[in-house]
């Protein structure tokens, strides 16, 4: 099936099978390796990308569903060499350790801030539930998201 979508701001026409998963198309066809395959069951959040601004698990999302839509991966966050404010906040807060969960955390946080510009700590925890990090203990990730929200105000 032919799908027409926008990936990180760039229009793409792709030929994909109905059973192709968005994660495989991003990683293998478009060589965007930021979204990770980890649990493969929508539990961990490492494969999170935004489709029309909404966080989805690319591991369990058919690529054909992205037809006519706009997909954002972590590779599309920075503006050239200039980091996205969330990325900067993560660096400054020390919210990145091994980095495996980071792309999913950043995109999930971006989706949250688009809905709620003034999140409380509980709001952030609620939204990030289901985004797993085995290094940081979450505290610095939540600090980073709150700091980015503060900066954006």
């Amino acid at each position, binding site marked *: *099936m032919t799908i027409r979508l926008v990936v990180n701001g760039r229009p793409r026409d792709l030929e994909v*099978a*109905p*059973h192709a*998963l968005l994660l*495989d198309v991003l990683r293998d066809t478009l060589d965007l390796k930021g979204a990770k395959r980890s649990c*493969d*069951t*929508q*539990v961990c*959040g490492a494969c*999170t990308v935004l489709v029309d601004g*909404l*966080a*989805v*698990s690319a591991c*369990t*999302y*058919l690529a*054909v569903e992205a037809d006519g839509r706009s997909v954002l991966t972590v590779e599309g966050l920075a503006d050239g060499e200039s980091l996205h404010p969330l990325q900067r906040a993560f660096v400054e807060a020390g919210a990145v350790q091994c980095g495996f969960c980071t792309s999913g955390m950043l995109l*999930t946080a971006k*989706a*949250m801030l688009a809905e709620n510009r003034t999140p409380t700590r509980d709001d952030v925890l*609620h*939204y990030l*539930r*289901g*985004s797993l990090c085995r290094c940081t203990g979450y505290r610095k990730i939540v600090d980073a998201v709150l700091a980015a929200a503060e900066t954006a105000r």
Partner: protein
Amino acid sequence: MLRPFTLHRPETAEEACALLAGLGEEAAAYAGGTELLLMMKLGLLRPRHLVDVKRIRGFGDIGLEPLSGRRLTIGAAVTHRAVEQSALVRARCPLVSSVARHVANVRVRNVGTVGGNLAFADPHSDLATLFLTLDASVELLSPRGRRELPLDDFVRGPWETSRASDELLGSVTLTPWASDTAAAYVKFGVHERPTLAVAAALRLDGTTGAGRNGRDRIVEARVAVGCVSLKPVRMAAAEARLTDLSIGDLDDAARAAADAAAAGVDPADDLYGSADYKREMVAVFVGRALRIAAARARGAESAARFPHTVVA
């Protein structure tokens, strides 16, 4: 990795039903895919045809049932996120909005649907447990016509429903509680899916908060427990212990009701804990849910916080 399949995208329920009837066991209805695609990845289901129901007119709608003008109908392809954000749901069934906000995680809520959740009949379904206290019924469509079934008859057991292979789940209809009802939904667990869930609703003989103006009799109690038995169940014995009581006497009655609920479930040993543990937790959490609902009846929000627990 998924096995190849053919994707069908009908635009009417008739077309979808004809496809399901024609393809039989080879086909599966597909909406968000949050349950179906997982089962397919594991090889537990191997459909050669997926019938996408998201483009069917009405399947994405939330509205009042025309006949009664009071019951709330949610189309099968409505996402959890849409339920959470619907002003109509918030106005008519506020606890359904709150629970929708806590289904799984944000990625599943953005894509997963109400119909998929009910049709998969996972015994850990939040919606099925809550909807039992809202006298839910489901609409099943097929080339043979349309039928409506109480949710309790539709869900038969773990991952098992009374849907025939040519039938399509079209919508679920809820009966909102009377406005003088105080309710709570409490779920507990450390895994992705809850270990147990309790929905409790207490209808008083006055408006909510009536405890403050003297009318505080519980005229009807509804308690449902999910995750623990083979399917979510209404706890009639527990409900009977609460009816006709003053809300002020709830503390003692809640203990009796919680024990009755624990005696009424049919738990098994599994990953979520031993049967004995689950029975014990049912007693604990039915008590907590009732006390939270009772606090709300008095116009207060309970300040109690419990570990690994979501209160909606």
